[in-house]
């Protein structure tokens, strides 16, 4: 069973379109993340949710809107796609606390969604 899954794996779309990427984890983690990795392999955090609550919102255009319907899911919706949005988007999950103790943040990553904006 896949621990962290993302759909779709590939997304090719035109500028100006709106698209969504979905993420699910079956690890029982309480925290989920979205990262963007550009062509130079720099991995930058975008958002983090802990128990469905937004806790990290880095400097990301407001065209990007995450939604967490429950602890196991974190989706990313992108409006008005631009060329510069082309990248690989990774979802990840971890425990923030375990047994009331702050975790060490070992993260499990999904397979990534390669977004290409034409």
């Amino acid at each position: 069973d896949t621990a962290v899954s993302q759909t779709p794996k590939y997304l090719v779309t035109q500028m100006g379109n709106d698209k969504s990427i979905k993420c699910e984890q079956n690890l029982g983690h309480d925290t989920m993340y979205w990262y963007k990795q550009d062509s130079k392999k720099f991995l930058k955090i975008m958002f983090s949710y802990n128990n469905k609550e937004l806790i990290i919102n880095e400097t990301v255009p407001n065209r990007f809107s995450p939604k967490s319907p429950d602890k196991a899911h974190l989706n990313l919706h992108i409006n008005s796609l631009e060329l510069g949005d082309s990248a690989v988007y990774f979802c990840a999950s971890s425990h923030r606390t375990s047994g009331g103790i702050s975790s060490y943040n070992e993260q499990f990553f999904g397979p990534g969604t390669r977004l290409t904006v034409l």
Partner: protein
Amino acid sequence: EDKVVQSPLSLVVHEGDTVTLNCSYEVTNFRSLLWYKQEKKAPTFLFMLTSSGIEKKSGRLSSILDKKELFSILNITATQTGDSAVYLCAAYNTNAGKSTFGDGTTLTVKP
């Protein structure tokens, strides 16, 4: 702002060589230093370090943390072509609830 710097950015070696990858960090409320390996797809977890001087080992890979000098190293001995990957280091800020990743070291092992 939290910062993680890895060096070198890239490295090309031959099979059998030993490599050392470096990671330095400046992170408030530091709790852990994590190493990941990224081949073609997603980063996969290698090590988590929280205490200075205690070496973590997994096969030919080992890692150690120095919390006084704020750095960690990842050693790979007797490298194989399958070790070719991007190695990412991340430092976890427990108050902010996020890990800051370095820019990675791209390791290429030639036959």
